[in-house]
């Protein structure tokens, strides 16, 4: 599973992308946030802002935190978009 990070998440985590092996009990987006927040202090400090962090699975926006990760190859995590 590829995780990609953008903007201040990328900078704070000092990581643009990484490959992770998710435990079998990480089934949906909400589980992923819980798992990430527990990885270490740095991840904990970033994912305490989970409520404003947005998610795309296979390059498609996902609003619902109960969305399953089944079939996900690439999950992106980023702050609210500020383009245009």
């Amino acid at each position: 599973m590829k995780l990609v990070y953008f903007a201040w998440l990328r900078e704070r985590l000092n990581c643009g992308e990484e490959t992770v092996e998710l435990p079998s009990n990480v089934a949906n987006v909400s589980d992923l946030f819980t798992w990430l927040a527990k990885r270490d202090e740095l991840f904990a400090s970033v994912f305490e802002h989970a409520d404003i962090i947005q998610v795309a699975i296979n390059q498609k926006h996902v609003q619902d935190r109960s969305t399953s990760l089944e079939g996900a190859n690439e999950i992106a995590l980023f702050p609210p978009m500020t383009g245009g």
Partner: protein
Amino acid sequence: MTIEPIIRVQSDEFSVDEEVKQLTGEKADIGAVVTFTGICREEGGRLSALELEHYPGMAEAEMTVFAKQAIERFNLQGLLAIHRYGKIDVGKQIVLVAAASRHRQAAFDGANYFMDYLKTNAPFWKKEHAKNSEQSNWVSARDADDHALSKWSKLD
């Protein structure tokens, strides 16, 4: 005939004239072209540049999906959008949206609608670089922009 939008994400600058030529091509039933160009403001002398980050692949794909919706919704004859990434100095262009239609209101609405979308739903992030210092910080999303997009759903 389905009209395909022209979507590009690039670091290079662009010429509005050249892009509009691309958009209108040889179509002889276009009566109106509206362009929106977003430019890097100095914010009262506070900024030297903006830096634009994007999600390659997703940015183009999402913009294309939304552009097709806009073409259908406003019955456009064409829609073109170019979004730049990388460091963009004060006074330089960031984004171009150009909409072509038979009559004027559709072109105004199509370009306006697509801009509201870009501000809130396209995977781009802006970082401000301060003038006369090494400081930089990520721009927060504006509630005003979310509100701008929601006005269109009232019309559905």
